[in-house]
């Protein structure tokens, strides 16, 4: 019995449970559904949801349980029997509870709420998982490499023979520098595009432009990388860096920042557009009615009202910028350096995580393990930044609501 059929079987049980649950509720009041505490659908959905939860939970957990209990050969037939059996059992139990007074909606909603809570815990679980999957190897790294050097050294020079310099500072600097430039590109462009789309453009234009801009987020980053490497980099070098005497590096922070900025435009523009569009028209009317120009209305009424959402969008864009590798590798180069000159090559933490993790170095040596420490450090840094951001948004928002 293949997985496909097992799932189909669960779904069948769910459907039957729904129909029977609903039917029983209707029957309980001899057809006059107004006498029911909850509408018949809720009785059906309660039974169905219970059956579904039981079935799918069993499907996911049973093999793990079997593994723990050292039942090595989990036969598909047994699996199917257990899963479908549990599902039916749950449905039957739900079925027995159904009568006119059964608070099916409340029970159903309580179940749904449980599911919702479970879902929002996935985020926490992911974080825990990430920390756990980084922390042991990081500890191993710090056993082999002094933490003072890692956090305070300004030199990054891994070496195959060992004796490497693995200071995070140049990488951190590169990360912040490149992300900042990317945001300087993306936030104004994205925000203005969003404003134009939601406030000025006709629905038709908006309907075309918005998805087009969204395509920018879907173009594989390697394309951006090549674009940076072949077009933007040389152009910046020939028309800006060299004439200004700022060096002649083909790859630079500027190149990567610009190109990455273009990539994250849709994060700012599309999300902000939705949020701005959701600001009630009556607020705009209020401002326009006082003789404000549309732009004044946008700046002083619409944007403040949409602020929390816009901040979220910008944070998302920033996050994406921090996590990007390909554009940095091809656009900004791979050399770890601390420099103010934006036309110099630099690199980011993320790039080095990837390269140290996928390189040819000894996997038990600090040169590879440093990737985990970098990951963990970046995690902590972004966490701190996010806390600050949340705090600022809160403080700012309190003025409004």
């Amino acid at each position: 019995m293949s997985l496909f059929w097992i799932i189909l079987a669960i779904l069948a049980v769910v459907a039957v449970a729904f129909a029977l649950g609903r039917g029983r509720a209707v029957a309980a009041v001899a057809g006059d559904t107004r006498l029911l505490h909850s509408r018949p659908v809720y009785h059906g959905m309660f039974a169905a949801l219970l059956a579904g939860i039981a079935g799918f939970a069993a499907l996911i957990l049973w093999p793990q349980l079997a593994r723990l209990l050292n039942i090595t050969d989990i036969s598909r037939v047994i699996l199917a029997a257990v899963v479908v059996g549990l599902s039916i059992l749950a449905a039957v139990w739900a079925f027995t509870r159904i009568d006119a007074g059964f608070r099916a909606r409340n029970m159903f909603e309580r179940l749904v709420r449980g599911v919702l809570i479970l879902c929002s815990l996935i985020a926490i679980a992911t974080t825990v998982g990430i920390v756990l999957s980084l922390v042991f190897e990081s500890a191993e790294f710090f056993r082999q490499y002094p933490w003072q050097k890692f956090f305070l050294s300004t030199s990054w020079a891994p070496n195959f023979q060992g004796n490497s310099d693995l200071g995070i500072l140049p990488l951190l600097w590169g990360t912040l520098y490149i992300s900042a430039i990317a945001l300087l590109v993306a936030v104004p462009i994205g925000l203005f595009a969003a404003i134009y789309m939601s406030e000025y453009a006709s629905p038709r234009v908006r309907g075309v432009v918005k998805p087009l801009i969204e395509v920018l987020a879907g173009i594989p980053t390697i394309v951006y990388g090549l674009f940076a490497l072949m077009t933007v980099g040389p152009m910046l070098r020939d028309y800006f860096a060299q004439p200004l005497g700022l060096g002649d590096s083909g790859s630079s922070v500027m190149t990567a920042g610009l190109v990455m900025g273009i990539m994250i435009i849709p994060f700012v523009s599309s999300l902000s557009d939705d949020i701005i569009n959701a600001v009630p028209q009556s607020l705009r009317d209020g401002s326009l009615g006082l003789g404000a120009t549309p732009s004044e209305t946008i700046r002083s009424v619409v944007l403040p009202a949409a602020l929390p959402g816009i901040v979220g969008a910008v944070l998302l864009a920033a996050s994406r910028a921090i996590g990007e590798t390909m554009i940095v590798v091809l656009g900004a180069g791979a050399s770890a350096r601390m420099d103010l000159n934006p036309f110099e090559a630099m690199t980011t933490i993320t790039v080095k995580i990837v390269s140290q993790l996928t390189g040819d170095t000894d996997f038990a040596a600090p040169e590879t393990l440093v990737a985990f420490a970098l990951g963990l450090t970046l995690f902590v840094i972004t966490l701190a930044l996010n806390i600050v951001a949340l705090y600022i948004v809160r403080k700012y928002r309190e003025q409004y609501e």
Partner: protein
Amino acid sequence: AARDQIQIAGSSTVLPYATIVAEAFGENTDFPTPVVESGGSGAGLKKFCEGVGEGTIDIANASRAIKDSEREACAAAGVTDIMEVRIGYDGIVFASDINGNDFKFTPADWYKALAANVVKDGKLVPNTVTKWNEVNPDLPDQEILAFVPGTKHGTREVFEEKVIAAGCEETKAKEEIAKIVTDKDEAAKACTALRTDGKAVDIDGDYTETLARIDSAKNGIGVFGLSFYENNTSKLKVATMSGVVPSTETIASGEYPVSRPLFFYVKKAHIGQVPGLKEFAEFFVSDEMAGPEGPLAAYGLVSDPELAKTQAAVADEQVMN
């Protein structure tokens, strides 16, 4: 259901060879085509050393020999019987834009051009040369710009060892450095450290990136694998090293100095568990594949003069001790 295809992971240098063999293996036998992951020697060996069983890989490709520390980690996870198979050599060449100047290098030229610090008047001072002909009057009057493999690449190790360190020795700089820097490790490091002022550009990507960089900076000189160069002879001009033109022959004979062996490692415990594993290993090192006339050599692998010995070892399932 037990896994029925072979799982391979590891070095991206070995990857093309492994895919060529895997493809031919899938075509010519009843076994499914093995799955070949890329991801670097370190990552490959790490997966290899994760343990024994269906959820772990069978073969790790590596562009270097497995390290002792890695074998310890392997053993700790229960991976004890490992077959080491050397498939041949990878030549490392220096090439520049096809329309540019001709170069005839020696390791000393590279050392003088790219060393981070040079000895001057008994002191280590930052390297300031900007043109190749300042390094060696026989070289063209061209800005120094070298695209060298990034620190993640095994090629970097070979480059540092066989070119920079060799140049360091050749120019007698090593002895002078030893006088200034007393710590032995530090002295070795000073010998191979590359400049960071933009003359030596680290490439963390692959050879296609190096090629693209030469495309956008025509005076750059890149470090490539021989097979990559051979596939792009219409765009690249190769430089000689110590007067030898790199080719499979000159490398096999040892005339051309810059090369390294390539390996793959087989988990012996999986032979018999994973269908076709031993057949694949044998197929890989067979003359039809890895021999001098085989497709791997045609693609640029320098075939191992001692291939017969390897074939025998694989047939015997000889493990490392």
